[in-house]
C-alpha cells in the first residue's frame, strides 16, 4: 500500500491510464498519454475521489486535464500531493 499522498496519487494515475508509476510526472496530460481520453478523465477524478475521500463539484470533473492541474484540484480540497 503506497504510504504518502504522492505515491497514492501516482498509483491512481498509473492504474487508470496504464502508465508505469515511475513515468508519471507533472507534464502528463491528454496530449502526452494516448489512454487519457474523456472516459478516463471521468475515471481519474472518480478514482481520486475514492482514494482521497474528497468530492469535487461538477464543474471540476472535466476541467482539470493534466497531472499538474489534478494535483492543484486536490490541494484545493485539502490534500497536498
Amino acid at each position, binding site marked *: 500500500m503506497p504510504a504518502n499522498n504522492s505515491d497514492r496519487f501516482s498509483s491512481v494515475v498509473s*492504474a*487508470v491510464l*496504464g*502508465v508505469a508509476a515511475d513515468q*508519471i510526472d507533472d507534464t502528463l496530460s491528454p496530449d502526452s*498519454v494516448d489512454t487519457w481520453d474523456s472516459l478516463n478523465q471521468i475515471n481519474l477524478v472518480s478514482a481520486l475521489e*475514492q482514494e482521497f475521500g474528497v468530492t469535487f463539484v*461538477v464543474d471540476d470533473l472535466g476541467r482539470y486535464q493534466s497531472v499538474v492541474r489534478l494535483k492543484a484540484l486536490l490541494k484545493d480540497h485539502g490534500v497536498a500531493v
Partner: protein
Amino acid sequence: MAKSTRPTRKLDFAEAAALLDSVDVAPTIVNIARAAGDLAEHDPSLVQARARLACLASFTFEPLVSAMTLQGLRARLGIEPYVAPFGQFDRELIDATSGLSAFNPDAVLLAIRLQDVCPALYESFNSLAPADAARLVEDWIGRLRSAVSTFRSRCPAAILIQNYNQPETPALGIADRLSPASQCELVSRVNADLAKLAESVENVRVMDYDGLVARHGRRSWEDRRMALYARIPVAPANYWRLAGFYVRHLRPLFGLSKKVLVLDADNTLWGGVVGDVGLDGIALGQDYPGSAFVALQRRALDLYHRGVILCLASKNEPGSVEEVLQKHPAMVLRMEHFAAMRINWAPKPQNVEEMAAELNLGVDSFVFIDDSPVECDLMRKALPQVATVLLPKEPAEYAAALESLDCFDQWQVSSEDRQRGGLYRAEAKRRELQSSTVDMPTFYRQLQMKVVFSVNQPAHVARAAQMTNRTNQFNMHTIRCSEDDIRGFMDGADADVITLALADRFGDNGIVGLAVVKRSPEEWLLHLFLMSCRVLGRTVEQSFVRWIAGRAAAAKARRLVGCFALTPKNKPFAGFYESCGFVPDSCEGKIQRWTRPLHSADTSLPDWIEMRVDDRAEKA
C-alpha cells in the same frame, strides 16, 4: 508519448482467481482498472465459454466495460464486448447494416432506463394527465416490441432487457401508493408489460434492475453529478455490482452455472466440533447460536429443492458426523440430502476431486463452503476451478452468505431440477449395488431399467433446450439451443428430436438423453447427441445409438453419421462412437466425422433394457 506498462508474465489460474477475489472485496475504480490491465492476457483455461456481447444502452455504458470483463472472468466467461453508439438502441436493433448486425452477437443487453426514454414520467409526473402518462408508456413498449421483434427475425441471439426502477421519491409523496393512477403504479405496470413482451418473443428475458437498485439503496445508487455531466446514472462505487448483475444473467445462458454445493460440517452445519463436544454439545436448535446454523441448513435445503446437489466434506471420524445427521433432533439436513460425503482426514481438495469423479461432474461445477480460512485457502490454491466461499465470522450472517450466491442460477427450473438431489442420492445407492454384484450384466438386470424414446414430443421442448445448455461433458460438440431451435427441428420435414427418459428400481431419472437427427435418404446424421452424465456407464448411451440406427435402417438409410469436436469439457465423449461400432471418417478442421454402416449391423437392444416408444414423427 508515455508508454503503457503491463506485466510481462501471465498470471496462472490460481493467481488470476485470487486477483479477481481481491477486486470483489474492494471494487474501486483503481482496483478494477489495474486488474483489467493485469488480466488483459490470461491463462486460457480461466475461460470456459466465450460470448460476443452487445451492450445497447440509453446511457454511457463504456465505464462499465472493464468491470463486465472482470466479472465475466470470475464466472469463467470470456466476454467480447460491443458497445453500441450512445442512445441508438432502436436503430441498432432495426437496421440490418448496423454495427450490432455486423457484430453478430451471442447475446444482447438492453440497458435502457425509463427515465431516459420517457423522462416526463420521472421529472414531471404530476404535470401529466393520467391518460397522457399511460400513452407515453404504451408508445415506449410498442417501440421496444417492434425493435426487438425486427432484430429477432434476423438474429437468434439471446436478448436480456433490464426492467425499470421505481423513483427514489414518488411524485405524489405519501399519497402515491394509494392512488391507482400513481407514478409507482405506472412503473409497476410498465414492468408487467415488459415481462409480457419478453414472453411473447423467443429468447428474450427480463433482468430485475429495479430489484437490484432497491437492494443496494435507491438513494446512493446514482451519482447525480455523473448522471448529469457524463450520463452515467450509476455511482462509480456501484459499477462492480451492476456488472456482476449483468453477468449473473448471462452465466446460465453459456452453461456456466454451478451445480454442486460442498458443505463443511463443524462450525458450518452446527456450532462446535462434534468430535470434541459430542452429539449433545454442538450448537444447533432454536436459540442463538444454534438458530444461526439451523437457518443456514434451511437455505441449503432450499437450494437442494431447486436442483443444487449437496455434498459434505468434513475432517472428522465418520461415525460422529453420521450420528448427528441421523439422530440430532434439530438437524434440517439428513443423510438422504447428500449425494456424496467424505468424512475423513484427507485434504479437502482431494475429497472434492473424488466426489466429482463419483458424481460424474467436473470440479468446475463445484462450490465449496467452509468456516476455516485455512481450508478455503488450500482449496483456492489446489483447485482454483472450484468456487470457494469463506463463511463470515459471525454465524448470524451464514444464511445470508448462502442466499447471496448467484452462481447456481438457471433461467428455467424444471421438474428434473426439483428432483435432482434425490436422483443423485439414488445413483449412490445404485453404485452400492454395483459394488455388491458379481458381473455387469447381472448388475444391469438388477437395475430394472425402463427407457422411453419420445420423438418430436412438444412437451419436451423446454427440457431439451435446457439439456443443450447444461450438458458439457457427454456432448458431441456442445451446440447450445434455444427452445425455438428445438421447435424448429421438431417442425422440420427432415429432422427429428428424440428424447430418452430413464427409470429404474431406484427411481425415475426423467429425461436424460437428447438426439437431433437430420435425415436424408442415404444418410442419417446425429446433429446433436448428448446424455446426462449421471446415467452413463449402464449401456443406455449405446442403446440410444443402436435404437436410432435401427430406425435409420428401417427407413432404408445406408449409414448413420456422428461428429465429434473436442471441447475443454467433453473428454468423456471421446471413444464413445467407437464403442457403438462407428469408424472414423473424414476430418474437417476440429470436427471428426464418424460413420456406422447400417446394412448388416445389429441394432437390437440389450435384454436388460425395457423399451417403449412415444412416436410423433408423422409430420403434416
